[in-house]
């Protein structure tokens, strides 16, 4: 399946905007991704191994945080994972 990498994280995937990985679950493909590109890990996860709060990972159009099966959700080759950091701000503190 394809994992789409956002512009700021391509520095850690050898400039690749899409990485193709195989695996049976969301957790497995993410594991494979960070095994192939170890520098990516610290940008996606906290030292405790939790997905960073500002990093969103979507399986097709669904946030993996809210999938009933979370990271054990099964995937098919035609599915897509998209990593997308958040965009927010404001004029005052």
């Amino acid at each position, binding site marked *: 399946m394809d994992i*789409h990498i*956002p*512009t*700021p994280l391509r*520095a850690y995937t050898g400039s690749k*905007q899409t990485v193709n990985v195989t695996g049976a679950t969301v957790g497995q493909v993410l594991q494979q991704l960070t095994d192939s590109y170890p520098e990516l890990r*610290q*940008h996606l996860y906290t030292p405790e191994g939790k997905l960073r709060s*500002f*990093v*969103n990972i*979507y399986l097709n*159009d669904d*946030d993996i945080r809210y999938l009933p099966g979370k990271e054990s959700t099964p995937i098919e080759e035609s599915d897509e994972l*998209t990593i*997308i*950091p*958040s*965009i*927010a*701000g*404001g*004029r*005052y*503190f």
Partner: protein
Amino acid sequence: MLKLSYLEYRALRAHGEETYPHECCGALLGHATPDGNHVSQTVRAGNTRSDRAHDRYNIAPEELIKIQRHARGLGLDIVGFYHSHPDCPAQWSKTDFDEAHWVGCSYIITRVNHGKSDVTNSFLLTGMGEDDKQFIDEAVEIEMAPSQTEKAQAKG
């Protein structure tokens, strides 16, 4: 340096006037080049912070994913974002900095003064990640497209 056409520059400033006194937001699509981000297209996005739209903005990740798909279809990348500061300087705030995570991307801010866009600045987010990220001032080059009259004259 950030390069942007006059049309897109005008479009993002107009967006801030339309949403005034609320903050507007959107994405910049184009290419990252060795001398900076070149914007080919701006895309408007909705501000999900309806609770505090006068001083906060947020783009829904679902919308960002659609924007990224759209960019990919055009052979473009997300190279930055823009938002407005209603009656506040065109400078990044602490919130803007804390919430900025797209290293290598340009963050454009326009001050909308009493409903009229005046100052527009761009800041490049640099660094390796959250620990050493930094906003640096970035020059904006507005590329003027030839007007219809000029095009007609060029044809002779």
